């Protein structure tokens, strides 16, 4: 009896730890993405960018693994029957953020969009806003698991950073199309600006769902 009770708490601690690691991974992904953009813009040689890409790739793999593990534990141990569906969707959505960040950076490496020097500051700002939106989403998710009342405190920040990201993307695109670059290059740059902005949009989507899960839990 004692042993199984200990085992129960042991498992609980393990699952909790897996949840936390997963959220850490997504959060680190956001930070790594921002610094990868910085590295890309600065890189004269390739060393920094390759290291950052490697880091993002590892985080993405780790995120996938942790997500699978937590999902497996939730189902095999039949945990949180009332919110299991919501928590699973949340995990999938967060993992998707990580995937999109990694894919975007891989595209940067392959396609090498040539952002003119004068756009670098704005692009950094866009990456900063996206990273903050991801970070706030992770904080809101953490609160959903541990402190349901403060989910709102983080959700509104996600919306705020998403708006900021939209504004920065808008400004960048106007600058690109107002320049004398060839059209093909303009379209190429626009695609990357949209891809980065999309990460913030997806964060907002996750936040919207999270708001609904929260209402359900508080009901």
């Amino acid at each position, binding site marked *: 009896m004692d042993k199984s009770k200990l085992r129960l708490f042991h498992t*609980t601690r393990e699952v909790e730890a897996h949840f936390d690691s997963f959220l850490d991974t997504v959060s680190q992904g956001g930070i790594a993405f921002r610094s990868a953009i910085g590295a890309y813009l600065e890189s004269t040689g390739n060393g920094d960018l390759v290291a950052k890409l490697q880091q993002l790739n590892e985080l993405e793999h780790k995120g996938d693994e942790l997500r699978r593990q937590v999902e497996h534990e939730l189902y095999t141990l039949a945990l949180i*029957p009332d919110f299991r569906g919501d*928590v699973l969707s949340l995990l999938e959505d967060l993992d998707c953020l990580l995937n999109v960040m990694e894919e975007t950076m891989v595209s940067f490496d392959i396609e090498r969009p040539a952002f003119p020097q004068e756009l670098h500051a704005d692009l950094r700002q866009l990456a900063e806003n996206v990273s903050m939106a991801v970070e706030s989403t992770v904080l809101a998710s953490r609160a959903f698991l541990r402190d349901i009342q403060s989910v709102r405190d983080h959700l509104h920040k996600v919306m705020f950073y998403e708006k900021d990201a939209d504004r920065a993307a808008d400004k960048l695109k106007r600058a690109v199309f107002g320049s004398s670059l060839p059209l093909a290059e303009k379209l190429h740059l626009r695609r990357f600006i949209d891809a980065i902005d999309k990460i913030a949009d997806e964060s907002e989507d996750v936040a919207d769902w999270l708001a609904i899960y929260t209402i359900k839990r508080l009901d």
Partner: protein
Amino acid sequence: MDPTIFLYLSSGLFLGWSLGANDAANVFGTAVASRMVKFRTAAIILTIGVILGAIVSGAGAAHTLSKLGAINALGGAFMVAFSAAAVVAWMTITGLPVSTTQAVVGAIIGWNMFTGSVTDYSVFKTICATWIASPVLTGFFSYFLYKGVMKWLEKSKIHIIRLDALTRIGLVVAGALGAYSLGANNIGNVMGVFIGANPFRDLHAGVFEFSGLQQLFLLGGVAIAVGVFSYAQRVMMTVGASIAPLTPVGAFVVIISTSLVLFLFASEGLEYALASIGLPTIPLVPVSSSQAVVGGVVGIGLIKNAKNIKWSVVGRIGLAWIQTPVIAALVCYVFLFFLQNVFGQTVYNPSEYRLSNQLLVHHGDAVDAKALSAVVGKNFTTSGGLKSAIDKALPDLPYKTGLKLVDESLVEAITVDPAKFAALEKLNVIEPERMEALRSLSGKTFTYRWELVQALADATPEWKLKEKTVLNKPYNKEIQKDLDLVMDAYVAKMK
């Protein structure tokens, strides 16, 4: 051993099955319906808990079933158990949680009507009170408890996974304790009427002793367990899911509220504890867990949104509560008629009721002996006959006093047979001084039961009941328990 006893026992097993299928929902209904505990896990815990409760603590409770005492023929006992079981089984198939105890009481009233025995109609008042008091009190508790728990959870910031684990442990522990007390308190309902005709003999294996009574209760416990496994899920879903949606924490609060209400309002232990430290006692209210648990679920439903509660289901459950004892009484009455007149079985052994002058003297000024002089010494074959004669002669007599007079007029001609002393001593329950007093009456014959009780009390103060106060209750109860053992030894209950 007469093999027909097993035929009679079958209705007790049927009642056990019904009890398991219906009352398991009181203990694990909310846990299973909220998907926190798997049905199989719940059924295994229930089985172990119920059988342990029945064997370990059931023997104490069974002797207090004085309501069943009047049934003196196996045929009658068979039909009482069968009618109650049939009604509860029917309610179980329709998925409605009802009280098995109330079905048994209803069936006994049917037997009383059929045999012309007196029924203490105050049991109706008690049962009606349970229908209201149990759900209202539990609903009130679960409403405020849930609010409190949710506030606390907001502050304590427990991880969703940890909260899940804690709730699960809480549900399993509360369920296991609930299963134990379900077995201990209800085995008397299931097997109580057959104690007098127990076909099992005591078994010895080294230091272990497995008494015949324990074997009988084990059989009853197994019947309850079969009921749990085969049919309990339906009523569980009604309780835990059909009335109102319930979260795991809500499921736990309902179970705790039910236990709390049973503890606060039905526990003589608490009453004694409060009285012994000079505090005012909480009035004892008749409560039933079947009804309490429904109130608990409604209480939580009210917090969230009263529209979430399916009032049609609540209404059907309420109707089933009223139907259970009424239909059990009617079914028992009709079936007894067939059993007696078509199958030629004895459902009642005629008794002799004779009001004696000594009894009137014993009651002193409380009863007007002169008015009853016409009744004294007359023989009646049923308690109902004597009761109506007393009522006719003395219409102003308080109802309870009248019932007591009738009860004490049963002619039993108890002879204190010295051959039984050894068996009583072996029980190791009755104090030596009390045993000594019993020995001093060896060979004497008493027409009435109260005379023997009186003679014992005269022999030693150890047998004397104390004044009726809350603080004296446990002491008096203990004497009553010993008296029951003595009476069981000397009075053949069942023929």
